[in-house]
């Protein structure tokens, strides 16, 4: 029975993530006085991509394997991620270190895929992606560690909800602000969509991909965004816990929708920053996140 919930977790992530992307594109279009694509457009895009030919211009097998690794890693994250009020079956088999590892694995697979081709744009995009990962993943790690410190356990459910069981406190409030400020970077939208800047780099790390490989990468990106939005709601919005399963799920999804609206509005009203400017911004966020964890360790 518990396995069913895990599988359900994964299905919900897989099928809802494109919808949220569609919402994001619609809101961006409305801010730009346009009508925008249909809400189901990302589904059509994925289906179309699956039907195309996958070209491997590099000759390496890693080029074909990279999207699969990325998709596998984010699926594993989806299974472990807290959704609704019930933990998944595998939640007791993995802790937050595993979560962080899996997310980083996804990022590394993007880098592998980009560096396997010798395309200059892909290499520049990969280097930017690397820098972004190095600077942004610590903030995520701090959020989870904060929860762990509060709940005195490393289990993902505990960590995620730990903030609420142990009481909100200054540390959680600080972490909430830090997470919000880093949300655009997690989601990879303006002002931080630097690795795949269309105007400068023509899609950056994903430039050589087509067909099913690219479809897998897009699923990876969409599910990653949904995970980050979901983590925000799970960690900082106390309503979810305590509701019956279906209602909790609905509430969680509604919360994710609100977060996506915020992501799109902020994304639509900001230009893209340069990588050196973004790095300075991330450094400040890391420091603030460290402070939050320190405060939590002291008991605040």
């Amino acid at each position, binding site marked *: 029975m518990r396995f069913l919930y895990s599988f359900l977790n994964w299905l919900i992530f897989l099928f809802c993530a494109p919808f949220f992307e569609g919402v994001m594109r619609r809101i961006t279009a*409305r*801010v*730009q*006085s*346009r*009508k925008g694509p249909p809400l189901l457009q990302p589904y059509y895009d994925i289906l179309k991509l699956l039907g195309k030919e996958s070209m491997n211009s590099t000759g390496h097998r890693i080029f074909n394997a990279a999207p699969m690794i990325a998709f596998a890693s984010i699926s594993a994250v989806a299974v472990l991620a807290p959704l609704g009020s019930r933990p998944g079956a595998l939640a007791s088999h993995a802790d937050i270190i595993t979560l962080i590892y899996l997310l980083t694995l996804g990022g590394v697979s993007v880098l592998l895929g980009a560096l396997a081709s010798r395309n200059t744009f892909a290499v520049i995009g990969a280097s930017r992606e690397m820098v972004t990962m190095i600077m942004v993943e610590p903030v995520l790690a701090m959020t989870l560690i904060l929860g762990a410190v509060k709940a005195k356990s490393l289990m993902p459910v505990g960590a995620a909800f730990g903030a609420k069981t142990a009481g909100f406190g200054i540390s959680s409030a600080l972490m909430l602000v830090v997470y919000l400020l880093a949300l655009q970077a997690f989601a990879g939208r303006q002002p931080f969509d630097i690795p795949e800047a269309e105007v400068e780099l023509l899609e950056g790390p994903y430039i050589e991909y087509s067909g099913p490989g690219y479809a897998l990468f897009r699923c990876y990106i969409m599910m990653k965004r949904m995970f980050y939005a979901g983590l925000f709601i799970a960690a900082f919005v106390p309503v979810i816990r305590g509701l019956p399963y279906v209602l909790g799920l609905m509430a969680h999804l509604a919360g994710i929708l609100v977060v996506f609206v915020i992501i799109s*509005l*902020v994304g639509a*009203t*900001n230009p893209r920053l340069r990588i050196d400017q973004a790095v300075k911004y991330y450094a400040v966020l890391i420091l603030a996140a460290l402070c939050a964890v320190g405060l939590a360790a002291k008991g605040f």
Partner: protein
Amino acid sequence: MWLTSKIKQILMVLKPGVVTLKYPFEPRPAPENFRGAPHWDHTKCVGCAGCANHCPARTILVRDLCQDIRILFYDGSRCTYCGRCADLCPEKAIVMTERFELATGDREDITENLELFMLTCQRCGRCYDMEINNAIDKLDLKGYRYDSLKARMVVRKTSDRMDAELLDETENYQRPGK
């Protein structure tokens, strides 16, 4: 400052709203005085070929088929819709219509072919024949062009009078270079 300008940017959008038009699912006619595809009224055209003389794209071709018949051929493939033909027509036979939806797979949709029965001279009983070099030709037909209708080739050289050699050259034109 940053936050207020962001909020202003969002508010800036609320007033105009969504401006996407539903064209082509809803028609959107051109305003009047729009310079769309030209249209010749064959009942008014006198065959002076002023339009052919002045078309910058050289897309109006004229040919005397025989003594009485002059062909005026508008090959719309190179037309830039500048409207000079309509400006110059002394009989106001050319109208720049409002048609702009001209994409087609069939060339005939954008051509207009007028076969004009020309008037004969009261004294000699023949039509004004541009194949003969006469004083009237020299006066009026400045920059007159002569093209091979079959090959629809671009005019190569304009001249200020009708020239049998030029006609010959045009008919036997080979693209230079190879």
